């Protein structure tokens, strides 16, 4: 069984570039990587005829664990981040952080789109005016311009906000799917 796990760890490590392996080796992050992973890296580096450098002092605790408190992660999200069997190809904390940033950015883009359209009111007004031959300074010109700006802002928000929100949700769902596919994780859904 242990040999099986070592083989799997080694298989995953062989996919990584030599530079990445050297970085992991030197960082010596024991909180993120197991002893078996370091053994595998050492063997792979030897096979690739790479000089094995000195390791830094081992890290047994992630500074990210302290940072996690600063973010508004749910219990289920923290359960994935703190799981004893972390994934090899991505960092769950990075995923959660990225989804939070995407959510935040989606909101920022709403504010920006509205602001941008308001700032460009005069430009839009100059574009609308020629279509009102009779009275170019009537209130109707301003109302029509405001409607066009509102429509433009709404379209801009739809085009940016929804794809970003969708991406954030897709990332969360993919992470939950990955978490549930791990060995020893009960098949209960994380999201009711």
């Amino acid at each position, binding site marked *: 069984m242990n040999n099986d796990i070592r083989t799997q760890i080694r298989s995953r490590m062989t*996919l990584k570039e030599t530079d990445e392996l050297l970085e992991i080796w030197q960082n010596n992050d024991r909180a993120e990587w197991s002893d078996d992973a370091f053994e595998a890296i050492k063997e792979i580096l030897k096979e690739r005829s790479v000089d094995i450098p000195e390791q830094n002092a081992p890290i047994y605790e992630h500074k990210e664990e302290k940072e996690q408190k600063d973010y508004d992660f749910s219990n289920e999200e923290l359960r994935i981040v703190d799981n004893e069997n972390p994934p090899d190809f991505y960092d769950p904390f990075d*995923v959660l952080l990225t989804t939070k940033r995407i959510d935040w950015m989606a909101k920022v*883009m709403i504010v920006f789109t509205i602001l941008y359209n308001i700032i460009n009111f005069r430009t839009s007004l100059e574009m609308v005016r020629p279509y009102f031959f009779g009275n170019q300074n009537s209130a109707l010109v301003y109302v029509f311009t405001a409607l066009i700006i509102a429509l433009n802002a709404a379209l801009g928000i739809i085009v940016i906000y929804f794809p970003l929100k969708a991406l954030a949700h897709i990332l969360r769902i993919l992470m939950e799917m990955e978490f549930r596919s791990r060995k020893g994780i009960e098949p209960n859904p994380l999201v009711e």
Partner: protein
Amino acid sequence: MNEQEEFFSPNHKRLLSIAVWARYLAWVVLVIYFFWAIGTYLQEQNMFMYYRAVGSTNHSNFIGLLKGFPFYGLSVFIEMIGVFLKGIVYFLVLKGISLGINMIVETDINYREQKGGTQ
């Protein structure tokens, strides 16, 4: 060794390669858009210098013009911020794609492991 090589199909390797490219490209895009935002300011400044050369403005420098017409200054600032925000959006999308691909590969590998290795 063969067992290890078979564990990851060419599709896995291709996906992981795309993920790495997307991760690095995200940073490249962010840097490019940062400089593009600065370029937007420089473009406006060049326009000002052209107008000054042909005698269309009385202002001696661009900063003076921005101070004299705060609304114009605000529009230039919003334009710059817009370019940079677009860069941040692309950065996040590319980073999300990279993470998403990695998670898909990880999930597939997990299922393969549970089924006892290669398929």
